[in-house]
């Protein structure tokens, strides 16, 4: 029973996170309070939202390296919108950021679908292009806190029943993605396309179009994150979230989402992101040099792939009858 439970990736991750938290608690008991958990969760919310989008893309055997650049561009446009029209209702600004994110995702998706360019090349290219566009748009100028309206900055921090809206939004996204992945044909198509693209054709699934939708999804979530990031840190500039694409992928990998496609879950992506979030938040608290963080997350990634790969390893085909019975 225990052994079987431990084979489940998500449960293994929960165990790892609990162990990690326990370890931190040994040195800093105050880390283990509801308020502290809420803070860590809130701090990880954006990473969670992004990891959910990346998960969809990786499930279809693609990759989206442009998510952080998309976030930065959408976030900048949201900030500029707010700056130019301070009266514009914030939900509209958010919708605009999500729409722009979606369009940027669609560009990736179209290049992958219609031109068959390898996803890594497409998103490597759009990664630099999207970030460059921010520069062209702003001449490199920052948009600072005082140039944003109070409503714009306040929304993610707004306290609703004890949790900030930012946390609620990420919970909502988790719920939505869970619904999409488990209860809609599109979500199941992500799995099918990544698991066996050849067979997906036989079940009437259009492989290219499914990938396109995965990119739309990751783009939309990146757009939402763009607004959240910019309003939370109350600043927008070319380099925000630079290099964050690798954190997103790392969260997915730690969460057991197979880079070869077809394997992974919403819970995995969330837990993977939380794992990184706990490490990020705990290090300064327990007086481990923040400089050690990078090496730690690198080691975690390597261990995670090794563990997941071992779980996925095929033991050869079962042909002998007695072997099948075992």
């Amino acid at each position, binding site marked *: 029973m225990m052994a079987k439970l431990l084979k489940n990736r998500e449960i293994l991750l929960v165990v790892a996170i609990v162990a990690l938290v326990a370890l931190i608690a040994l040195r800093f008991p105050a880390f283990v309070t509801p308020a502290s958990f809420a803070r860590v969760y809130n701090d990880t919310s954006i990473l969670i939202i992004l990891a959910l989008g990346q998960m969809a893309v990786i499930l279809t055997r693609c990759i989206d390296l442009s998510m952080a650049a998309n976030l930065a561009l959408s976030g900048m446009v949201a900030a500029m919108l707010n700056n130019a029209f301070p009266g514009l209702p914030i939900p509209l600004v958010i919708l605009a950021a999500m729409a722009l994110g979606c369009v940027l995702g669609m560009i990736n998706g179209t*290049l992958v679908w219609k031109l068959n360019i390898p996803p890594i090349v497409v998103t490597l*290219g759009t990664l630099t292009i999207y970030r460059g566009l921010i520069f062209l748009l702003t001449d490199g100028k920052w948009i600072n806190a005082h140039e944003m309206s109070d409503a714009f900055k306040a929304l993610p921090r707004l306290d609703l029943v004890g949790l900030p809206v930012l946390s609620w939004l990420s919970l909502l996204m988790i719920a939505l993605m869970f619904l999409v992945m488990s209860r809609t044909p599109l979500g199941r198509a992500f799995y099918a396309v990544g698991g066996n693209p050849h067979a997906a054709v036989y079940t009437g699934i259009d492989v290219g179009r499914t990938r396109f939708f995965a990119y739309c999804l990751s783009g939309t979530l990146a757009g939402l994150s763009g607004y959240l990031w910019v309003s939370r840190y109350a600043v927008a500039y070319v380099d925000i979230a630079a290099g964050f694409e*690798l954190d997103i992928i*790392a969260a997915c990998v730690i969460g057991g989402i197979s880079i070869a496609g077809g394997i992974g879950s919403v819970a995995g992506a969330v837990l993977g992101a939380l794992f990184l979030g706990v490490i990020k938040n705990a290090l300064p608290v327990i007086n481990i*040099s923040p*400089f050690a963080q990078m090496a*730690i*997350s690198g080691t975690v*990634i*390597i261990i995670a792939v090794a563990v997941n790969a071992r779980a996925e390893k095929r033991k050869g085909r079962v042909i002998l009858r007695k072997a099948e019975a075992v």
Partner: protein
Amino acid sequence: MTDAHLSPRNIPDRLQGRGARILKSWESLLLAVAIAIFLGNSLASPYFLDPWNLSDATFNFTEKAMIAFAMALVIISGEIDLSVASIIALASTAMGYAVQLGVDTPALVAIGLGVGLVCGMVNGLLITGLGLPSIVVTIGTMSLFRGLSFIVLGDQAFTGYPESFAWFGQGYVWWVFSFEFTLFVLLAILYGVLLHKTNFGRAVYAIGNNQTAALFSGVRVARVKFILFLLTGLMAGLASICLTSRLGSTRPSIALGWELEVVTMVVLGGVNILGGSGTIPGVVLAALIMGMVTFGFGLLNVPGIVMSIFIGLLLISVIALPILWQRARRRLAH
């Protein structure tokens, strides 16, 4: 044709002559682009056509190109190594540390190359030994290697490299030809021969096109891949020596983000990111193109990020255009 009688039909070795093959190749397209950029630059700025300026400009790409050669082989074999920039940082940190202990230049070089090799070995063992996907492993080691330099250095820097060490990044072999540029040319030839003229190179292509079939054909797949990761590590170590020497100091953030630039260089050079095809001359041309674009824009004081948009567009369009072109031709034919 003495053995013509063996076959009812005599199959020629090749259909096209060497000239036709070269003319139709990706490299000639790149060469055309390179020449266009060269001419454009000469027209746009009066400072471009100056031997010393051109020599200075080569520093923009020589270090990245050294890694790109090894990376090209790795990508042709169907793998990828994203940890190269972090290997530079770790090797540089090790050298800086050694300087504090009073080590001399030859030993520094050995340490730089040695750390590169060890890092490559770690990648190679994880990927070929445990059979893990290289993209994830090297994302992991990318954090790990640079993370180690952060642990050693924190917000500090290592300086005080010996005078003689400066030669690798700042010295000239003859006239305007810097050590780095000379090394770049030598390595281009070396890798060109390795990939295109040896059994090893053939094995790399075979693995990239069909790893299983290559294994069935007696290619030692794991060993070849292991060697490729070693080579990439070694090249990153070499680049680290040049870059450290050029900067005269080591910070853990050294060469941040270079891995993507190196991959871009390789892909722009016509190497298929999915493995199986690509050439060293292509990578050389891509390096020259990227170097000239950076320098040309720099002379016009265009910010670096605009250059990267240009490179990003170039990357997608050089792959998309042939596809679109073929489609258009097929549609016309119908």
